[in-house]
């Protein structure tokens, strides 16, 4: 079947999608966006977390056909998504990032890096080790800070309870979310 949906602010189309295929498979294998990670395929690890019409979900548990006509934000579009949000922009045509740009995305620490505040905070706090869980955590943490700009430690732990990390022991990840929250308070 054909799937038409919005990915990171741009209309996309995929053909010959198998009816039992997951949104995650479409994103990784058909759109060429490998940022969302494929691990447990049963909703336990959170490494495939994306926003579906703004709601954080496990992309491995969304049937591809369920994304028809809906909006998906992946980690590749997170910096652009955060920028739009900060500038009060709406998703008009011409916004968003193309698949080619998304595929070329690199985290270049430096003045001109295309990083959302939460990505910057993860780097600065040393919250990334092997990096496999990072995309899902970034999407989940960004959504937490969107609805709660000064979360308590309990709020952070609950918001990230569906994202497993086997390297860090989570402390640096909690630090990163606190750092991003503190920076946004300063900016106001």
């Amino acid at each position: 079947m054909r799937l038409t949906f919005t990915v990171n602010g741009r209309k996309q189309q995929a053909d010959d999608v198998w009816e039992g295929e997951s949104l995650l498979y479409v994103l990784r294998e058909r759109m060429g966006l490998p940022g969302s990670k494929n691990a447990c395929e049963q909703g336990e690890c959170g490494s495939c977390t994306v926003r579906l019409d703004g709601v954080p979900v496990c992309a491995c548990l969304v049937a591809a056909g369920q994304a028809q006509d809906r909006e998906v934000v992946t980690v590749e579009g997170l910096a652009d998504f955060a920028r739009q949000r900060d500038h009060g922009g709406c998703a008009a045509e011409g916004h968003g990032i193309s698949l080619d740009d998304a595929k070329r995305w690199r985290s270049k620490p430096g003045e001109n890096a295309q990083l959302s505040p939460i990505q910057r905070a993860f780097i600065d706090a040393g919250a990334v080790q092997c990096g496999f869980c990072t995309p899902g955590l970034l999407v989940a943490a960004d959504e937490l800070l969107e609805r709660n700009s000064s979360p308590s430690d309990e709020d952070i732990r609950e918001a990230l309870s569906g994202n497993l990390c086997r390297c860090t022991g989570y402390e640096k990840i909690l630090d990163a979310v606190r750092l991003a929250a503190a920076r946004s308070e300063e900016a106001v």
Partner: protein
Amino acid sequence: MDFLRPASWEEALAAKAEHPTAVPIAGGTDVMVEINFDHRRPDALLDLNRIGELREWEVGEETVRLGACVPYTRIIESLRAELPGLALAAHTVGSPQIRNRGSVGGNLGAASPAGDSHPALLAAGAEVEAVSVRGTRMIPVEEFYTGVKRNCLEPDELIRAVHIKKADGPQQFSKVGTRNAMVIAVCAFGIALHPGTRTVRTGIGSAAPTPIRATAAEEFLNSALAEAGLWDSGQIIPPAVARQFAELVSGAANPIDDVRGSAAYRRHALGVMARRTLGWAWEEYRGNERSARCA
């Protein structure tokens, strides 16, 4: 495989009548796991996400009519006062990502004995609104479960809503697992006090082929509370009564040994949860709200 995408409830019923083997998919948190692991290859998936009314609820005089696809997150945010037991149970489901997609309708459709909402539905009292092109059936939830992952839906029926009695007294829910998040219940227990009718109802999860009520325990407690006049006096429940209630709850279960726990452990844990949740609920009835967050 077909992917059926009805835009309205009527279209969904027509599609289910035409394709009785089609598997309804709402949040996908159960169905997609089975497809991802190749445990299931349905002829067709019937996507319910485009039917807006399934994500709505109505608070009526005595019941809440909860649309089949209302995500757990909404129940936690918006129905804590009307459905406190279900809201507590909903909060133990998976993770935020899962609670954003999973729903009570899905829990009933999957009919896993470990489903988190079942004990709360059994304790509160609930009816499943099962609909087909032939008409509507209201099925009491205790008759809905027929076996492990089996329910009494006909092949052409879909769950439209669940009608749950609004709380008329304190409700509690407790679940045993290895951590606080992302846990399939080793076993679970729900209790609801109904001061209006001076009855107590219970629900046991993950400790029998289907979710069940502990009816002998309920009957024992109902008469013990009545005989001692405790509903009126508001005195504490004598420890011997609580102990007997716990033993009867343990005895009502029919658990198995599996990777998550042994049958003996499940029976023991159920007794502990029954005694504790009764204590918490009764304290609240006496006017002492419980402050701790974890069950």
